[in-house]
C-alpha cells in the first residue's frame, strides 16, 4: 500500500481496523512496564516522592503541545494540499490535545502546591499552557459553530497556524522569563540533567503516553469519518424527502 492510498477514507478505515488492536496491546504493555518502573524509581533528594507526579505531568505536557503541532501540520495539509484526511486529523486531535493539556495543568498544580507552596501562579510557563488549553476550547467551539466541515476546516486551520506561535513560547518561557517553573531538564543542549534512575522510567512513560495518543487519535479519526458519512446520508435523506 502506498502512502497516498491513505487519502481514501475507506482504505484508511480498513487500515485503522487492522492497526488499532496491535496499538492498544502495545500501549497497555508500555504502560505496565512504565508504571512498574515509576513505582520502583527512587525518591528525588529534594522533592521526595512527589517526583512521581513527573511521570504523568511531563508526558501530558508533551502531548498537549504535540497535538497542537500535529493540528498545525494538518492545517497546512488542509490549506495547501486540500488532503481529504487532513481536516479529519485536525478535528480528531483537538479534544485529545485539550484533555492532555488539562491533565498537565491539574497534575502541575498538584505538584506545585507541596513544592512551591501554591497551586497556581501567573508565571510565563503556567500562563502559556493555560492559553494553549483555552485555544483548544476555542478550536473545538469553532468546529461546532460552522456546519459545513470543509469550510470549518479552513477557518480552524488558519486559527491553528496562528496559535502555533504559542508552542515556542511555552517551550522557551522558562528561559526567556523568570518563572517558578523549573528550566528544561529533559530536552536541552548538553543533555538531560535528570539521573538515569528517574530518566529511564520517564522516557518509558513518554513512549506509553505517545502510543496512547496515537491509538486515541486513530480511533477518533475513524469516528469523524463515520460522522461525516452520517451527515452525507442525512442530507441525501432530506433531499429525497423534498424531491430534489
Amino acid at each position, binding site marked *: 500500500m502506498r502512502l497516498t492510498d491513505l487519502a481514501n477514507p475507506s482504505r484508511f478505515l480498513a487500515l485503522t481496523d487492522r492497526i488499532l488492536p496491535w496499538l492498544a496491546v502495545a500501549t497497555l504493555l508500555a504502560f505496565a512496564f512504565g508504571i512498574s518502573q515509576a513505582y520502583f524509581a527512587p525518591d528525588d533528594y529534594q522533592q521526595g516522592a512527589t517526583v512521581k*507526579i513527573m511521570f504523568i505531568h511531563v508526558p501530558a505536557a508533551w502531548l498537549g503541545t504535540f497535538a497542537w503541532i500535529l493540528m498545525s501540520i494538518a492545517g497546512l495539509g488542509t490549506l495547501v494540499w486540500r488532503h481529504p484526511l487532513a481536516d479529519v486529523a485536525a478535528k480528531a486531535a483537538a479534544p485529545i490535545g485539550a484533555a492532555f493539556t488539562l*491533565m498537565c495543568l*491539574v*497534575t502541575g498544580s*498538584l505538584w506545585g502546591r507541596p513544592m512551591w507552596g501554591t497551586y497556581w501562579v501567573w508565571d510565563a510557563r503556567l500562563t502559556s499552557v493555560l492559553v494553549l488549553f483555552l485555544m483548544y476550547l476555542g478550536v473545538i467551539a469553532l468546529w461546532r459553530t460552522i456546519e459545513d466541515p470543509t469550510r470549518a476546516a479552513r477557518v480552524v486551520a488558519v486559527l491553528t497556524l496562528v496559535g502555533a506561535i504559542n508552542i515556542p513560547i511555552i517551550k522557551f518561557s522558562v528561559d526567556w522569563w523568570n518563572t517558578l517553573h523549573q528550566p528544561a531538564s529533559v530536552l536541552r543542549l548538553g543533555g538531560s540533567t535528570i539521573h538515569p534512575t528517574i530518566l529511564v522510567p520517564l522516557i518509558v512513560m513518554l513512549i506509553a503516553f505517545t502510543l496512547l495518543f496515537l491509538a*486515541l487519535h486513530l480511533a477518533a479519526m475513524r469516528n469523524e469519518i463515520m460522522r461525516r458519512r452520517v451527515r452525507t446520508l442525512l442530507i441525501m435523506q432530506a433531499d429525497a424527502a423534498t424531491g430534489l
Partner: protein
Amino acid sequence: MNLGPHVGFIVTAYVAAIAIVAGLVAWIVFERRHLNRVLNEFEAHGIRRRSGRAQEDKA
C-alpha cells in the same frame, strides 16, 4: 512504598490522570457505537452513499 507527607497530592494527581484518560476512551467508544447504530439504521432503510452502492455493484 512510603510516599511521604505529600501522599494525598500524588494519589490525587494519578486519579485525575486516570479519570481524564478513562473519559477520553469512554467518549470514543460510545461515539463509535452510536455512529455504527445510526449507519446501520440508514442501511436498513436502504439509504446508502453513492460510493457504497458503487462498491456493491462491483462485487
